């Protein structure tokens, strides 16, 4: 597929950039995933055409929105306004590095700026695996999502459109876009609007007054393909009303057979389907809805300065939500008044003389939210009934989630893989869906399950939350860390993975779900420095009770 220039990611990203600079505010912006030289080149090319400002990830409200510059105001004795980054980039674009780590406060501000059409955004997403993406509400508002992870360097050049007035779309074109969106399961109307704008801009770029098939295909490829949540049903199937997604191979054949008398919308659907990114395609073929509504990116809690148990004051500027500790500030300033007055020659009645160093802000201790990670053995040796119990326990935990403000994640391991079925979430709706289709059977790749769990635990921790791990298994590993069968190697790999968890100091609990308490389960718990709980006849409620009492302890 990569032989076709139209499907080359860097080519598409360049095309997207070309369209984007035609109307930055209408398109909202771009998400450029993957750190590569090609991305740098592209960003540089866009910066030549557009006012661009880089947005540091730790920016505070004053710098972003503008406001009173406290230090300057104190020095001048009158309010000094500082202009914000949003105002400086007005009508242009903000380049946001490390967008996958963005906190919800910043994302909220940027959402508003996008809705008010003040700036466009270029999100540089360096996220790795495990659903690490920029805040989804933000991504939704940006037309183009490009993956440049594996792109080599290439000089990016941007062209000027050949037409002065924007091209138009006829009704047939709009219908084709709507049908393509429906076929790919794109629910957002905003995405459709972006697609129609993209088609128009594409036509404008190449000097066509009315958007044609090529323009629509390009737009569907650029905007709709990365947002696909399902594979299109096979075209022109006369009977079946709602057939399951076909194998990609079948689809291809069908299309070839009837390519002569295809309707416009079918061609557009085909173009978009061909451009669905490979990893997304793999997920869709398995029938999994991709990272659709993760809580990822939105969490990042601040650890102090806002709320919680008061801890006393420390020197600092009241910004980023930190509150000024008035009394402490005055206390810091008072001893110096004599000296300062002499210095500036002020008389006795002058108001108190403040310096920047006097400012004190309050600190608070905030309890980090807890994320409970379930790693569930879904292999053949762990009976199918156990799986149902684990599911029940996860649902019961979730039912309490809004009370305890804790989140739940679920990893299942079986056969040759460990899969993250449920990224950290508080949503019942979502959990239920992910759990409903949890399959069972196959070998026990315990090492893989543990590795996936500890990786997730680390990413949870890096977002400032406290992970706790619950492993439900019988401990009888028979698939090793590389997915190869073999009891001996599997056992060693699992032990190594368990020790890694112990080194990280992750709070863990091993629930032995084998019919009779086994030696392996106990050993695993020891290696992990975890508590051990044998539950040969656990039902969902007992399991939940065991976990809850543990959390209270």
């Amino acid at each position, binding site marked *: 597929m990569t032989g076709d220039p139209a499907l080359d990611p860097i080519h598409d990203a360049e095309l997207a950039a070309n369209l984007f600079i035609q109307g930055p505010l209408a398109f909202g912006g771009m998400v450029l995933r993957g750190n590569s030289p090609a991305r740098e080149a592209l960003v540089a090319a866009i910066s030549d055409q557009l006012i661009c400002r880089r947005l540091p990830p730790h920016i505070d409200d004053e710098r972003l929105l503008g406001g009173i510059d*406290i230090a300057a*105001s104190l020095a001048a004795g*009158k*309010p000094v306004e500082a202009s914000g980054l949003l105002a400086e980039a007005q009508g242009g674009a903000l380049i946001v590095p490390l967008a996958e780590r963005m*906190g*919800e*406060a*910043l994302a*909220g*501000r940027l*959402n*508003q700026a996008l*809705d*008010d*059409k003040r700036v466009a955004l270029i999100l540089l997403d360096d996220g790795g695996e495990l659903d690490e993406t920029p805040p989804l*509400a933000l991504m*939704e508002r940006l037309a183009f999502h490009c993956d440049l992870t594996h792109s080599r360097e290439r000089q990016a050049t941007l062209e000027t459109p050949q037409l002065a007035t924007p091209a138009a*779309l006829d*009704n047939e074109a*709009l*219908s084709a*876009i*709507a*049908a393509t*969106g*429906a076929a790919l399961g794109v*629910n957002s*109307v*905003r*995405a*459709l*609007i972006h697609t*129609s*704008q993209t088609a*128009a801009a594409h036509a404008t770029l190449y000097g066509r007054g009315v958007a044609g098939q090529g323009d629509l295909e390009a737009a569907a490829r650029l905007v709709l393909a990365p947002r696909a949540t399902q594979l299109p049903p096979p075209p022109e199937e006369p009977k079946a009303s709602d057939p399951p997604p076909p194998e990609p191979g079948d689809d291809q054949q069908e299309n070839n057979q009837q390519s002569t008398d295809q309707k416009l919308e079918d061609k557009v659907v085909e173009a978009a389907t061909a451009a669905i990114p490979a990893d997304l395609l793999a997920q869709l073929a398995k029938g999994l809805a991709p990272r*659709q509504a993760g*809580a990822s990116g939105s969490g990042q809690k601040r650890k102090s300065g*806002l*709320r919680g148990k008061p801890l006393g004051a420390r020197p600092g500027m*009241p910004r980023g*939500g930190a*509150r*000024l500790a*008035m009394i402490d500030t005055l206390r810091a300033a008072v001893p110096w008044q004599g000296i300062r007055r002499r210095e500036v020659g002020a008389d006795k009645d002058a*108001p*108190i003389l403040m310096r920047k160093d006097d400012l004190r802000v309050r600190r608070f201790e905030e309890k980090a939210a807890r994320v409970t990670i379930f790693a569930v053995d879904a292999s053949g040796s762990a009976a199918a009934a156990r799986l149902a119990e684990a599911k029940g326990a996860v*649902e*019961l935990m*979730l*039912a309490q*989630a*809004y*009370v305890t403000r804790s989140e739940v994640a679920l990893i299942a391991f079986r056969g040759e893989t460990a899969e993250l079925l449920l990224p950290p*979430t*508080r*949503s*019942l*709706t*979502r959990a*239920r869906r992910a759990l409903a289709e949890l399959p069972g059977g196959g070998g026990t790749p315990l090492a893989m399950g543990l590795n996936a769990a500890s990786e997730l635990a680390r990413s949870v921790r890096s977002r400032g939350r406290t992970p706790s791990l619950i492993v439900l298994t019988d401990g009888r590993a028979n698939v090793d860390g590389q997915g190869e069968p073999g009891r001996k190697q599997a056992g060693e790999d699992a032990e190594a993975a368990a020790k890694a968890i112990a080194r990280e100091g992750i709070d863990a609990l091993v629930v032995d779900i084998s019919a009779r308490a086994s030696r392996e389960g106990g050993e695993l718990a020891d290696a992990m420095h975890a508590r051990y709980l044998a539950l040969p006849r656990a039902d969902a409620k007992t399991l939940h009770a065991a976990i809850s009492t543990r959390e209270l302890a």
Partner: protein
Amino acid sequence: MAKFPFSAIVGQDEMKQALLIAAVDPAIGGVMVFGDRGTGKSTAARALASLLPPITAHENCLYGSSKEDAAAYPEVCGGGPLRKRPVPFVDLPLGATEDRVIGSLDLERALRSGEKGFEPGLLAKSHRGFLYIDEINLLEDHLVDLLLDVAASGENVVEREGLSVRHPARFVLIGSGNPEEGELRPQLLDRFGLSVEVRTPEEVETRVEIMRLVAANERDPAAFADEWAEEDTRILKQIARGKTRLAKLEPSEDLLTDAAHLCLAVGADGLRGELTLMRAARALAARNGARKVKREHLIAVAPSALRHRLRRDVLDETGSTARITRALEELFQ
């Protein structure tokens, strides 16, 4: 999504109905909108705010006080001649701090002149208008509590940092969120007057129509606004008529019985369901220019008024809307 005429919004009838009810009777207590991203939630709320006629307020007042407000809260009103200003629409960002929302000590004034002053927050700004919160389910619980409390009492009382201020804050709270990303606590949900579910339109024609209208609006916003002005004016008149008629409408005994039966049948917790149901039915009747509140009005608002108050069984898959529809059919067929 800068300005889009309210009447040009395609579909989403339930959301539009709920917003208009809130415009007729702001005491209904806020509207919660559940739905996927990109279905026009914030567009509709903004459109309604810019549709409403300007309010008259004292020019120098930071709180947008009317003449009556100024009399009731003389200590906070900045005074000045009465001038018209647009209905405020405040978009509360997700990361907003408590200070920004309720207001705080005016730091700059305190440091420069040692005076203790109050710097109004977003609640003050949204007085007599709309306070819109996108992704309210991700907002800190204590902030949501506070917002609902102020929304219900119509007054913001600040007692902190040595300040003691109270100012009027009557606004229509509009929250939106996607239940897939975390739920709102039932206690909070219950305090919203109405809740609506917004779905993405399924029909191709509707989707085409939306794209067509958005493109037209972008090409020439002024002409587009003109095209829809007449329809917008009609809606505006309905709201005005609704407001004047509201006081005259009293629901009959029969209707109250109907409401009670319905709430019992669906198992809505608490009395707030019944009260909101009657209020909403009355507002709808008033807006439609009906002489009295009828059963059809009750049926039309029942899903919005009750959906979020049903006792929920964690493992029950049946949606709340389906349960209400079933009860309506059984009772009133």
